[in-house]
């Protein structure tokens, strides 16, 4: 190990200087809150008092009380459904944008696609309520078309929550997959065609595998944002079932039980971390 030259030391110091703001930011706004949350999760609310002796009672309660555990299972189920449906809808949309829309119109098409997202997330969720509820646009349309004889409600259930989520995440996934598709050299498909592959076979064996990283990144973002979302299920789900973020809010808003809420949030963090590790392993992020 040779001693570093003054030039190397200066470069290293400058690198640390550039890194410092990011490190401070991450430390102050991610690591410190996370440590505080982890500490809180090991404390306990007894009556109106906060008992600061370490205990695993909150975690024990989470696994012992089936209605709490069920909120995690509900969250995972809903998130998987949303991610799958969003991918299935976003891929064709991204493909049409990248392959069928003329290059000069693509930017406009993308702007038009994301235009609704310039409105508030809460307002958009309530708008969906007006579309899906009894006497709403969808119900009236079915009545007018003679498909139903009575007003029908599609709101206040898991389906409505999924619709609200999918509306948001299809666009997110479309953008990530589109970015992947437009970077794909046409030479790959030409080579496949030269070797005798039809359009379907070329898509299945060449285009799809090469765009899987885009799908995975978008799907991971969808998973993370969806599993931690409180607003959409709260507005559209009608509390027919509880997802984990709703259970966390219930602990805070109704009982100020921050230790229990922190324990539930740590469980949520653990699930997201596991999914991240799986995605990173699959994408071999460490090699990138």
């Amino acid at each position, binding site marked *: 190990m040779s001693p570093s030259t003054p030039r190397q030391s200066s470069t290293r110091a400058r690198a640390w200087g550039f890194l410092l703001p990011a490190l401070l930011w991450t430390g102050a706004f991610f690591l410190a809150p996370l440590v505080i949350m982890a500490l809180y999760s090991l404390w306990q609310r007894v*009556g109106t008092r906060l008992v600061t002796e370490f205990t695993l009672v909150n975690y024990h309660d989470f696994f012992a009380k089936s209605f709490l555990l069920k909120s995690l299972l509900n969250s995972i189920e809903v998130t998987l459904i949303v991610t799958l449906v969003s991918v299935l809808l976003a891929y064709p949309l991204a493909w049409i944008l990248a392959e069928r829309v003329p290059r000069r119109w693509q930017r406009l098409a993308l702007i038009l696609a994301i235009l609704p997202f310039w409105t508030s997330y809460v307002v958009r969720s309530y708008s969906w309520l007006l579309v899906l509820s*009894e006497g*709403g646009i969808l119900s009236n349309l079915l009545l007018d078309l003679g498909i139903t004889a009575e*007003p029908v409600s599609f*709101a*206040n259930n898991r389906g409505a929550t999924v619709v609200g989520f999918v509306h948001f995440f299809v666009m997110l996934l479309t953008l990530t997959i589109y970015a992947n598709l437009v970077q794909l050299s046409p030479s790959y498909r030409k080579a496949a065609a030269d070797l005798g592959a039809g359009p379907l076979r070329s898509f299945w064996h060449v285009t799809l595998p090469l765009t899987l990283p885009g799908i995975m990144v978008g799907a991971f973002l969808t998973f993370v944002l969806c599993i931690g979302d409180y607003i959409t299920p709260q507005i559209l789900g*009608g509390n027919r*079932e509880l997802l984990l973020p709703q259970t966390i809010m219930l602990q805070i808003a*109704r009982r100020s039980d921050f230790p229990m809420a922190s324990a539930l949030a740590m469980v949520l963090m653990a699930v997201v971390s596991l999914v991240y590790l799986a995605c990173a392993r699959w994408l071999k992020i460490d090699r990138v």
Partner: protein
Amino acid sequence: MTSRIRGITRRHGLLLGAAVLGAGLSFSATAGATEELNALVWCDHTDPALIAPFEEAHGVKVNLKEYEGTGAALAIVEQSRPGDWDVFVIDGVDVPRVVEAGLLAELPADQLPLNDIFDQVQMTDVTHKDGKMYAIMEKFGYNVISYDKSKVDPADMRDLTSLWSDKYKGRIAVYDYYIPLMDLVALKMGMKPDDITADKLPAMKEELFKLKENSVMVGEVVSSTTALATGEADILIGGGEWAVAVMQAENPNLDWVLPDQGGILWSQSLAVFKDSEKKDLALKFVQYIMSPEGQARLATSSCFWGMPANKKAGAALSDAQKAALRWDEQEAFLAKSYRYFIPDAELDAEMLDVWTEFLQH
């Protein structure tokens, strides 16, 4: 080229600095000229029709910070410096714990219209401690039954048990607050809210599960009233005047009633912070809110309506407004009402568990 850009930048920088300094000075001058009052409030206090007359009369600015839930308000206070807040609007049931925490200043009872307040909402056991008054009830109402009278039989709405019958299956929205709702379940079961004990919870849970089977949704204020407004639900259990009065102008079919078994009384109170440096102005604000005019404006706030605590506000309300508040039935309603049951911490946790199970059911 570079020097020109630098020159322009420097000149612009000086101009910008001068502008910022000027704006700062003018802001300081304005801030100095207008006295300000900082109030932690519920959304009904944010109606300009309520606040503007006080600001104009006293030449002051009232800064309003809206919050939901006493826990959230206390967190705000905890993160503030002593003296940051002057006035506090707080849930009636939470006054004792805020007094206990030493946050409130004593109010001069002789300078407030206590004799004009409905007897049942004086609640001196809550607002007073050791003979000193720390808060005054300003508004009240009921967690009972709101409904669309074009879709249900109004006579049925006077009987809580009808909500558990098949007749209204899939037509009910449930207000998502476990204390008043479990109080109503207790009334339906023939108990008083104060009778709730841990051993009654299994039976109450069964009742809640049956109610869930009849319900179309469970939601907080906005969601549950939206369900009623859009026709998603015909009945809102836990609702009351606060849920329908604002919407009655658009939909006169929306109504509310206190069932024969009784109803749950909610109340909100007004207090002054102990560390306020503007206690005189804060007291004037309390006096304004408690005046008949202030009370009428608060009762019909654009955020939500509720009964004014001051009986004399009736003179400042129109007949239509009084009809929406069911003014003439207040004596009977109050006689049949129960205040929010305040369980001890252990029972509270068990009740929340039952409620969570109900939501998950």
